């Protein structure tokens, strides 16, 4: 009988004292014109409630960042006729970061391409609206492009020369960062990740000490087909590419990332995936690279300290020297 008591006591003790793996709650949705996945586990409170609160934030972000939503903060700024306009701290941060990166890239990354986007119809999800504009239309729109036309004074912004801002090049990374911070504020030891349209921010390592495995979509494959894998314990990963918002006219592919000098997309790269500790670079660096090409991509990566996995127009893989730190092999 004593032996049985010892065994049963041991089993009960093990049940109570062995640390269980976190129970993850995952929610999917379509927000901000893209799909969203949040996976989260916490020992403080209810994971579902926290994730639901995070999802509620998207309507706020839409009212700030959607340049095509009449009445949104960015819409109002774009239609402010060159007047000084007070903006929210969130919008101001993304505008400042975007302009700083524009300066750093000598205008290869430029958020003032806003007027080009509706010309191509890429501001809508209706593919029937996507088309090749006339050279004259592009020439006219380019007169209103140039980050030098954005002035910032305290919490006010002034857009000169009729420029329109489109902050998609950094917005998703910044929102991912805000949601990661929200999750960590609830519980600093919580784990999981936030995925906003393929821009992923890590809340904490999987099961507390394992990396999350992120597939890199094959730019010429289907959406569930990975061409390589990243392992991440923290930080951000994002991808820019030519394979979702695009048209092919007379055999030439045109996609939604425009060279601010020409008004057309360049065909240097099919896809660029960036790993960074800074959320804004996980998106912004890819956009820059799609415009600037391989050589500039390599130089800028060294300058700002990001790792990248790119595929050029010939389908060849190009990796930064530090990519091995993040590469996950089956």
């Amino acid at each position, binding site marked *: 009988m*004593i032996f049985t008591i010892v065994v049963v006591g041991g089993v009960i003790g093990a049940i109570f004292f062995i640390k269980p793996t976190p129970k993850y709650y995952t929610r*999917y*949705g379509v927000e901000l014109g893209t799909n969203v996945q949040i996976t989260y586990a916490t020992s403080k409170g209810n994971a579902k409630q926290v994730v639901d609160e995070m999802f509620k934030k998207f309507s706020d972000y839409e009212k700030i960042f959607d340049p095509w939503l009449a009445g949104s903060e960015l819409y109002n700024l774009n239609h402010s006729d060159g007047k000084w306009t007070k903006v929210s701290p969130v919008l101001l941060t993304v505008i400042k970061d975007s302009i700083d990166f524009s300066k750093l890239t000598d205008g290869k990354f430029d958020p003032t391409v806003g007027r080009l986007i509706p010309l191509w119809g890429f501001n809508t*999800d209706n593919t029937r609206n996507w088309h090749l504009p006339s050279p004259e239309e592009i020439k006219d729109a380019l007169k209103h492009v140039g980050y030098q036309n954005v002035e910032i004074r305290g919490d006010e912004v002034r857009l000169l020369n009729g420029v329109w801002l489109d902050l998609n090049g950094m917005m998703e990374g910044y929102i991912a960062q805000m949601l990661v911070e929200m999750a960590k504020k609830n519980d600093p030891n919580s784990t999981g990740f936030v995925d906003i349209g*393929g821009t*992923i921010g890590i809340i904490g390592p999987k099961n507390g000490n394992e990396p999350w495995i992120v597939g890199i979509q094959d730019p010429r494959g289907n*959406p569930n087909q990975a061409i390589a894998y990243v392992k991440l314990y923290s930080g951000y990963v*994002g991808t820019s590419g030519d394979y979702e918002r695009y048209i092919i006219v007379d055999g030439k592919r045109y996609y939604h990332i425009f060279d601010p000098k020409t008004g057309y997309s360049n065909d240097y790269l099919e896809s660029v995936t960036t790993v960074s500790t800074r959320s804004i670079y996980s998106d912004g660096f890819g956009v820059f690279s799609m415009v600037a090409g391989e050589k500039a991509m390599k130089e800028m990566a060294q300058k700002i300290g990001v790792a990248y996995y790119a595929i050029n127009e010939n389908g060849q893989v190009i990796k930064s020297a530090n990519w091995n730190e993040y590469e996950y092999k089956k």
Partner: protein
Amino acid sequence: MNTKNKFFSKWDLLLIVFLVAGLGIWIGIKQFSPPAAKAIILLDGKVYKVIPLDKNAYYKIYRGDTYLMTVETKPGAIRATYSTNWIFPQTETTQVSVATGWISKEGETIISVPNKIVIYTEGSKERTLYDAMTYQN
């Protein structure tokens, strides 16, 4: 002289055998009998329909009276066969939800952004190697 072992009797042995057998059966059920595969269809962020993936069938998805998409199932898998946000042939753009094809593993999704539809599977025997996918935004 009493030779009985007070620390360990045959009843103890029987109890331990029962405990171990019970634990084994419980682990076996948990490990080797996953729940039947099903597809979850979300529309506007809410569960629209849960479909057992146990037969060949077609289902139509509506928002109110508005037809949005047709999905096809076969045992263990689901795909979108038609979506109303159809491609514009002159520009050769692809319709992502239909181009995705069959999904059968946990972790795979079918997304229609214009229609705000997300489809994923639960209870599948396999899951993707990845936890999330990064793609162009």
